C-alpha cells in the first residue's frame, strides 16, 4: 500500500501524543499497537491519539482503536482523541465511542482538559 499507517510518539507537557498518519485500516494494527505499547512502557498516563494526518479510516481501523481503548481502561490510563474530521467525529458518535473517549477540536483543547482537572 502506498499510504501505510504510521504512528509516531511525541512527548508534550501533560500529554503523550501518538500522531497517526496514512490509512487507518486493518493494516494499521502493528503500527498502532506497538506505538501504544511503547507509550505504556514509558508509564504515560494521558495519551492523545491525533488523527489529523490520517487520510482514510474504516471500521477495521476503528476496531484497532477500540482495542487500544480497552487496554487503556484496564491500565488506568486516560485516552483522548483529536484531529478527526467532522464526518469521523459523527461516526465515532454513532458508534457510541464518544461516550468512552473524549474527542477534542485541537491538541490544546485536550491539554487544557487535563490541566483543569
Amino acid at each position: 500500500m502506498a499510504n501505510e499507517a504510521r504512528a509516531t510518539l511525541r512527548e508534550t507537557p501533560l500529554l503523550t501524543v501518538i500522531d497517526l498518519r496514512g490509512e487507518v485500516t486493518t493494516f494499521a494494527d502493528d503500527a498502532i499497537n506497538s506505538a501504544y505499547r511503547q507509550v505504556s512502557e514509558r508509564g504515560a498516563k494521558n495519551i492523545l491519539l491525533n488523527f489529523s494526518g490520517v487520510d482514510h479510516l474504516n471500521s477495521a481501523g476503528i476496531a484497532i482503536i477500540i482495542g487500544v481503548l480497552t487496554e487503556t481502561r484496564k491500565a488506568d490510563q486516560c485516552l483522548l482523541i483529536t484531529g478527526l474530521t467532522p464526518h469521523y467525529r459523527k461516526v465515532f458518535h454513532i458508534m457510541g465511542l464518544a461516550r468512552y473517549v473524549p474527542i477534542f477540536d485541537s491538541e490544546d483543547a485536550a491539554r487544557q482538559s487535563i490541566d483543569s482537572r
Partner: protein
Amino acid sequence: MVSGKPTAKRRRNRTIELGIPSDLGWERAAMDVAASVARCMGFPADRIEDIKTAVAEATLNAIEHGNSLDASQRVLIVLVPEGEKLEINVRDRSSTPFPPAEAVGAPSLEDKLTGLSNTRGWGTFLIRSLVDEVEFTSTSEGNLVRMVIHLEP
C-alpha cells in the same frame, strides 16, 4: 445529466459500473467513484462523506467476507443515479448468505470494551446508520447490498 423518468433501458444505460478484484485496498476506488457520482448529482459534502463510508464498508465486506479475499473473484459496484436519489449496489460471489438480521444487530461497545465480543463487527451497523435505505439479499449468484441515498433528506 440525470433527469426524466427512468425506463428499464434508460436505467441500465445510466448506470456507472465498477469491477474490482477482491484485494484489500481497492475499496478506495469504489469510494472515489461513488464520491464523484454523488458530487455530479449535487449531494452536499457531508452526505458525500456518508456515501463514501457506506460504500467502503459494503465493498470491504464483499472483498473480505463475500469473496474471502480470493483475488480471482470480483466485486461489482453499480451506481444508479436517478434524479432525486442515488442507488448503489455492491455485489459479490459469496456462497455463504448474509447472517440473519438479528445476528448483526447494533453491536455493543460495552461488550467489546470488556472483551466479551470481538472489536470488529461495525460495517453493517455503519451502513445502516449512514444511508436512507438498505437491503441485503443473498442469491445463488452471491450477496448483494443495495443502498439508496436521497438528495433531499
